[in-house]
């Protein structure tokens, strides 16, 4: 066990012992170490003004990830390198290509969002050799700018590769990170607060059994707001991000098993390969920095009515492996939720992994409806999987988020489809059955009427896509190919 956190701030080793475990990295930067370059625009991971880069060990390689520092807890930095906008210029003061391209393309006006944009692009500069405009849109989906209208920033993003590459700064990051790699439990005590970061599944299960009232911290994209917005006291926190078994992804011929602490970014490639529509949903889930932190396990355990991962997982018949002090049980995702933000998890029990069947005969359609395409919370999220034998519906699952207190199957609708002929008439009847399945609420995201109407229409859209595949139905795909 260790009681201190160690990380690199730029190329300087930081060793901290007495820290508030729920202090955010942004507050640490701005208020403790005098790095005010990273800004607070929203304190909820939605504007990106606080974006920083984390560099961490992946085996013996380095992985670079942009994250929102405003909702990242300081101890999560343990074993990593934190790179902020203050680190980007070269030692002689020359601007980095990202920065110079931003200046030359007139990519800043008020400049308040700019450090965040620079860090998102700086991270992309480490990982990509070039960017298309569509890729730029993805890389920057988590950065809001209110002045420029984005075009000059997108130009800078595409042009930054044309500048002379800067010499590598702070060499031996790999070695330094290997030096501070931790294979034991981290325990912090600060005032009445405790923070544990176990390194193995056994340690985690034991700790959680010992502290069943502890708050599980995974990506922190929701828990962070308990601090910044709700000003809650989190007495005991157990962090899952260092638990190796929970970070594993295993694929066999018939299933994909994803550890509950796997981030959306890491889960994206295998899921996208198996189920492109599910992959597209993940592409639109939050933003790059959110997906770099947020975990699929957290999205499920949070039991939100609008957890986007849930409808497609349900439609695929996914199961969860639950663990309580080493005792495991497997449950169907369908049976996991018992109400608004409520699950069957017993005290001390947690999701160990998500098991996604690989369905060879099914077709999966996934749809996300929101006011804005990128980084928005769904008004309605729909997932339909279907196994057709000729035009006979052998198996079908129709699942929705945003339509009830938790994401769930449209059972009446499924019944109206199962065993029937896959025709427009059947689909219209099934769509009408949705009114028996759901009575959605009206809120700031959508009215009840719209939710119901669009839920029906999405089923119709899926039908058109299966029965008339030449019809153009996807607006984003169409827009990407449009040449005026």
């Amino acid at each position, binding site marked *: 066990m260790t009681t201190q956190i160690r990380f690199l701030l730029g190329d300087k080793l930081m060793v901290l012992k007495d820290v508030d475990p729920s202090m955010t990295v942004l507050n640490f930067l701005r208020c403790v170490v005098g790095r005010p370059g990273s800004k607070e625009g*929203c304190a909820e991971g939605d504007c990106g003004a606080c974006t920083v880069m984390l560099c961490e060990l992946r085996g013996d390689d380095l992985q670079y990830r942009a994250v929102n520092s405003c909702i990242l807890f300081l101890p999560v930095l343990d074993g990593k390198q934190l790179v902020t906008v203050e680190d980007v210029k070269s030692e002689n003061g020359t601007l980095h290509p990202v920065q110079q391209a931003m*200046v030359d393309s*007139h990519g800043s*006006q008020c400049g308040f969002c700019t450090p965040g944009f620079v860090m998102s692009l700086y991270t992309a500069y480490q990982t990509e050799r070039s960017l298309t405009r569509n890729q730029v849109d993805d890389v920057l*989906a988590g950065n809001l700018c209110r*002045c420029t209208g984005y075009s000059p920033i*997108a130009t800078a993003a595409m042009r930054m590769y044309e500048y002379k590459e800067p010499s590598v700064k702070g060499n031996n990051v790999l070695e330094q990170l290997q030096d501070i790699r931790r294979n034991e439990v981290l325990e912090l005590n600060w005032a009445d607060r405790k923070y544990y970061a176990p390194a193995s599944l056994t340690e985690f299960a034991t700790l959680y059994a010992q502290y069943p009232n502890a708050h599980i911290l995974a990506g922190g994209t929701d828990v962070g707001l308990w601090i910044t917005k709700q000003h809650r006291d989190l007495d005991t926190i157990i962090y899952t991000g260092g638990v190796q078994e929970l970070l594993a992804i295993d694929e066999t011929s018939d299933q994909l098993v994803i550890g509950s602490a796997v981030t959306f970014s890491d889960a994206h490639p295998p899921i996208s390969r198996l189920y492109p529509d599910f992959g597209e949903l993940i592409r639109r889930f939050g933003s790059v920095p959110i997906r770099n932190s947020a975990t699929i396990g957290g999205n499920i355990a949070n039991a939100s009515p609008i957890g986007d991962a849930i409808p497609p997982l349900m439609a695929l018949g996914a199961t969860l492996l639950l663990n309580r002090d080493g005792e495991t049980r497997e449950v169907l995702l369908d049976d996991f939720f018992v109400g608004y933000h409520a699950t069957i998890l017993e005290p001390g029990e947690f999701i160990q992994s998500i098991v996604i069947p690989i369905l060879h005969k099914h077709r999966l359609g996934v749809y996300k409806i929101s006011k804005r395409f990128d980084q928005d919370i769904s008004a309605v999220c729909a997932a339909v999987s279907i196994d057709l034998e000729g035009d006979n519906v052998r198996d079908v699952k129709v699942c929705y988020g945003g339509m009830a207190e938790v994401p769930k199957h449209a059972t009446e609708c499924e019944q109206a489809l199962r065993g029937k002929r896959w025709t427009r008439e059947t689909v219209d009847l099934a769509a009408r059955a949705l009114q028996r399945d759901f009575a959605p609420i009206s809120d700031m995201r959508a009215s009840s009427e719209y939710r119901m109407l*669009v839920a029906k229409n999405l089923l119709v859209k899926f039908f058109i896509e299966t029965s008339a595949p030449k019809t153009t139905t996807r607006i984003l795909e169409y827009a990407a190919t449009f040449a005026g």
Partner: protein
Amino acid sequence: MQQPSLAESTVSPGRIRGGVHDALPQDSAHKHVSGEAVYVDDIPAAEGQLYAAIGVSDNPHARLTRLDLQPVEDMDGVVAVLTANDIPGVNNITPTVGSEPVFARELVEYAGQPIFAVAAKSVEQARRAARKAITHYDDLDPIITVDQALEKQCYVLPSHTMKRGDSKTAIASAPHKISGNLRIGGQDHFYLEGQVALAIPQEDGDVLIHSSTQHPSEVQHTVAKVLSCPNNAVTVEVRRMGGGFGGKETQATLFACIAALLARETRMPVNLCMDRDDDMIITGKRHDFLTEYEVGFDDDGRILGVDFSLASRCGISADLSGPVNDRAMFHSDNAYYLENVTINSHRCKTNTVSNTAFRGFGGPQGMMGIETVVDEIARRLNKDPLDVRKLNLYGVDERDVTPYEMRVEDTNLSTIIRDLEQTSSYRERRKAVAEFNANSPLLKRGLALTPVKFGISFTLTHLNQGGALIHVYTDGSVHLNHGGTEMGQGVMTKVAQIVAEEFQIDIDHVKITSTNTGKVPNTSATAASASTDLNGKAAENAARTIKNRLIDFAAQHFETSAGEVSFRNNEVVVGKQTLPFAKLVKLAHQARISLSSTGFYSTPKIHYDREATRGRPFYYFACGAAVSEVVIDTLTGEHKLLRVDILHDVGKSINPAIDRGQIEGGFVQGMGWLTTEELCWDESGHLTTHAPSTYKIPVCSDVPEDFRVSLLEAANKEDVIYRSKAVGEPPLMLSLSVFFALKDAIASTNGHERSPRLDVPATPERVLMSIQELSHRHSDKI
């Protein structure tokens, strides 16, 4: 200006770097990208600095019967708690007329209204404490919506009418008539830097305030009123804002006052930096409007008479609602000649936050009315809306008088539209859109061209003044100060270019300095797009004064005539000899010549009689036009902008790169207002969209790669600084083309048989419901 631009900034030999017309990057660009640009909350904390938070009303309209602050005072780290009773001066921060308290005392009038403030040793402690007050209320009936206010005739200001000709008769006798209404949503500014003020006590009880404000003088004067001290005891400094957009014109005052009150109370520096949610709840927004219209027109679509009724949600107080609504009226013609017109304006009082300035200042809402009318006429007559727009456009030397009897001269409107129609291939694309729609059952495209004619000047004539202060030091370096504030729009860079040009020195020698009420007093807000016009001229005047002294001195010193002295490219030519600028300056100093001067400017020609609604409120008009093409999904209402073509008149641009940035940024901000940005209040008057998780401004992917912007660089006919034109606000309204392209796409779903009903913002929900309503209406008629 340490980082010379590699790209567009052109340096010609024999010419100074960074003179007027150069496409320089914003002066702070290199500091923005390295995180070195200092915003108020980045100023290092002084020893013992305190942090403030505001306690607010949870009730939209009530008598506050009990306010127990003991639990607040008992919280960790709390140093001071203040209420209305602790204000030494007046508890009123209205910038105009009526009353708007710093802290509500007995009556709360909106959910989120400040009732007390706390200073504590950390931000977290202050924010936690501010939630601990015990309040009891006697509820009163709230008025939340415009409709409720209209029904009860509850207004913050008297209604106002502008009238020309006889619209009643003209409409009654017209061959065709349409009447209808349109709901236009508001908009949160969503400046990335929230409201913030840092108040630092000085000797004699004075206070220095670092404020993120567009209006340092108003902050200064209001803080003095609230503290009960003379204006000269308060100094306000602004280096830069992280965005303003009108949201820091009057709204910054509250936070500066609270910080100053707490600083005076505790005798310690106090930082009040708003959390995003609190900021959105406490500060005013763009006014939402209910616009009703009735129009009579002929067979060609020519407007014969039109009536507008504009009702806006002003919130609890007048704030800037008077001039905002006046500007909505002034822009109810947009680019069109209205011979017989009546515009009624109602300024509704509601139990919601007091709405305020927002880029366009009522103009966008006014234009939405007439553009809707023109679009409706075209759809009724089954014409291309562009043809109806062109038909009704202001003429040259005929049909060129506005409803307030100002002549529209030299707007370039018809040239702009004609050129844009061609360069955007409007007609060909109109055909292509129809063809696509005929073959695409689910996705439909839409196309629209809309013009903008925007009046430049504060409509309150006396505000049209600018001031500057320039020092030249003995090494030839220049200190530049003026009344304009930097919010990202580039005013500092442009004015520095003007001064560099005047002195004929590289811009690197011109130091841009923080706006400070101690240097240039009694300034107008950085608003109305006019800051470069006003402060650029003032700075030019200040520089010219010093330059003339230098010329006179040089002529005398070198025994020649003033006509033989000229400044060019960092040098001064005196007769046959040439000496560096710095050398001449040093000589002048030794000869006891003053090297410092103020400069002043007031806009000529303007006047307005508000009672008669007649005059010339605007010095000139800035015009432009845009073509937008969109695609919609008829099953979900989702939509996407595919391509934009813009042609905008910036006069002879002082900085084409900055102007382009204003055009692109304004367009996208306007598009957000018209599409994704939706402000929602629940029935109890609480704003439910108060964070970026629920309030959606455009992101990068909402902006098409195919975004074509051209500047019409025709010299301004009026003697505006270097014949440029103001560019801050007008481009926002180019985004109306997106809205009308969406309407066009929706109309295609029933073969353009009828005009769809579409309100602002056109969210996917509104688009889908519009399609639904259209198809139901269609089947009803058949």
